[in-house]
């Protein structure tokens, strides 16, 4: 279908010529034919304005994919929300997470596309809104961003910055004069501590807010504060959308000092809370936290001092006690030594005495033994001499008696032999000796008859003459 395919019948050949009103009427008609009474469009709210009449106007744009703030959108269409629809729409949004329409918000809206002839503008007359779209879009955006930050390691980056010992110098990023600012300031003042606040005033909502917040964070970071507090009071969920933005999240992650957040109400949690060193729920809570940290260190300091004073006293006392102990030990050791030396010495004295007495006793015994032995041996020698002498005497006596007896026996033997040879013994047995001329006659042949013979017999001699020789 074309805007121009049903030409006016009264028109001459060639392109028809409309009056502006006719054209406007024709456009409205074509639009009505093409889109009907209702359509749904999704896009991002820009240039939202609320008229005194109660109507609301904004542009619904298709942002440039490069997502540069302030860049020309890829497509844009004007939206008008009249008062009678606006109340309903706002009510719907309020009921869904306390949202309110604002710049930068992504919406899916219902309405009629129409041409406004007086302005010569094509616009959508908004009649309704899909709150779930906005919520989902926000959530999806949030999740995407979280994922991205996590991938880059930015979620834990600020948490890795050590929390200062005494965060007395605070870089406060907030909207100056806001309730959040007052709450935060009051809390600091009430603490009674010496705070040095470097205030960076910045809008905290709206489409331009994120880069400004990010710049403020960077600026106080450069100012050399101990800690950065980013605070904003509560509002509609969509009011806090700036704190879900990537540029703010990156500024927090890159901050050189810890960032404490206190954004929104109790239930609100934004991306910045995920990136910050410490996420407190409200500005007051953030101040309380910082005060608490400073006070904790103040207390730690005082405690350290008290402990030092106490320890110093204790050390002196201990040293004193130890010294008293050393003194006692010294005295005891010295006395012990003297006592031991004395008893050792007396032991030795006793030993000298005992040994001397033992020695004289043992020598006495030795000499007495000698005397006893001497007597015994002398008497033994005398007895031995006696015994020897007696043996000799017996030997002499025995031998002396034996000799005459042996001699007598030998003599008797000789005598008996002599006796056997005595001629008188032969004659006594009847034998005789015959002699002739004094010679013993042994052979008759030596004799002649008549020879004179003398025969000796035992009892005398016989004289005879040889008568015959045979």
């Amino acid at each position, binding site marked *: 279908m074309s805007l121009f395919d049903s030409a006016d019948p009264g028109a001459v050949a060639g392109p028809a010529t409309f009056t502006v009103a006719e054209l406007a009427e024709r456009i409205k008609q074509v639009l009505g034919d093409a889109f009907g009474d209702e359509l749904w469009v999704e896009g991002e709210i820009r240039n939202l304005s609320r008229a005194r009449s109660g109507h609301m106007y904004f542009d619904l744009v298709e942002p440039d994919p490069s997502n540069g703030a302030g860049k020309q959108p890829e497509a844009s269409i004007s939206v008008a929300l009249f008062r009678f629809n606006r109340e309903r729409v706002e009510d719907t949004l309020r009921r869904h997470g306390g949202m309110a329409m604002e710049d930068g918000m992504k919406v899916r809206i219902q309405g009629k596309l129409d041409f406004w002839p007086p302005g010569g503008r094509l616009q959508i007359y908004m009649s309704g809104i899909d709150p779930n779209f906005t919520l989902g879009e926000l959530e999806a955006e949030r999740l995407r961003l979280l994922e991205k930050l996590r991938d880059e390691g930015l979620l834990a980056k600020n948490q890795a910055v050590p929390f200062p010992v*005494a965060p007395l110098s605070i870089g406060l990023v907030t909207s100056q004069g806001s309730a959040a600012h007052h709450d935060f300031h009051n809390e600091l003042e009430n603490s009674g501590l010496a705070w040095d606040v470097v205030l960076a005033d910045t809008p905290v909502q709206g489409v331009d807010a994120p880069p400004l917040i990010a710049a403020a964070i960077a600026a106080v970071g450069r100012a050399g504060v101990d800690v950065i507090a980013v605070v904003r009071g509560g509002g509609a969920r969509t009011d806090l959308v700036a704190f879900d933005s990537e540029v703010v999240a990156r500024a927090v992650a890159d901050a050189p000092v810890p960032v404490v957040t206190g954004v929104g109400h109790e239930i609100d949690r934004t991306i910045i809370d995920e990136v910050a060193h410490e996420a407190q729920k409200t500005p007051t809570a953030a101040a309380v936290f910082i005060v608490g940290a400073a006070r904790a260190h103040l207390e730690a300091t005082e405690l350290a001092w008290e402990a030092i004073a106490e320890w110093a006293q204790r050390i002196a006392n201990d040293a004193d006690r130890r010294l008293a102990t050393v003194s006692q030990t010294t005295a005891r050791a010295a006395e012990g030594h003297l006592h031991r030396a004395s008893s050792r010495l007396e032991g030795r004295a006793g030993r000298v005495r005992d040994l001397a007495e033992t020695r004289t006793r043992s020598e006495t015994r030795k000499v007495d033994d000698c005397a006893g032995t001497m007597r015994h041996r002398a008497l033994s020698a005398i007895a031995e001499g006696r015994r020897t002498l007696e043996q000799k005497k017996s030997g002499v006596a025995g031998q002396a008696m034996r000799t005459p007896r042996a001699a007598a026996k030998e003599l008797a033997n000789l005598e008996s032999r002599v006796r056997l040879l005595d001629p008188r013994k032969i004659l006594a047995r009847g034998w005789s000796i015959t002699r002739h001329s004094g010679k013993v006659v042994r052979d008759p042949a030596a004799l002649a008859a008549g020879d004179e013979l003398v025969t000796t017999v035992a009892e005398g001699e016989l004289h005879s003459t040889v008568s015959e020789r045979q």
Partner: protein
Amino acid sequence: MSTQEIGYADALSELQQILGELEAEDIDIDVLAVKVERAAELIRVCRGRINDAEVRVKEIVAGMDSEEGESSE
């Protein structure tokens, strides 16, 4: 480090260190008073730093910085 220049954190850290030294049994008595004196000085510094009830506020024009940031981009 002179107490004129010392930061609160350094002061606290030095205090803690002194405490640690005192807690170690073998501190020299001659050093004790010196240490306690230094601790007293540190605590005086810390108290001075923290106990001034007035909140001093310095303002920063973030916008200027951001503009400056943009111009330098």
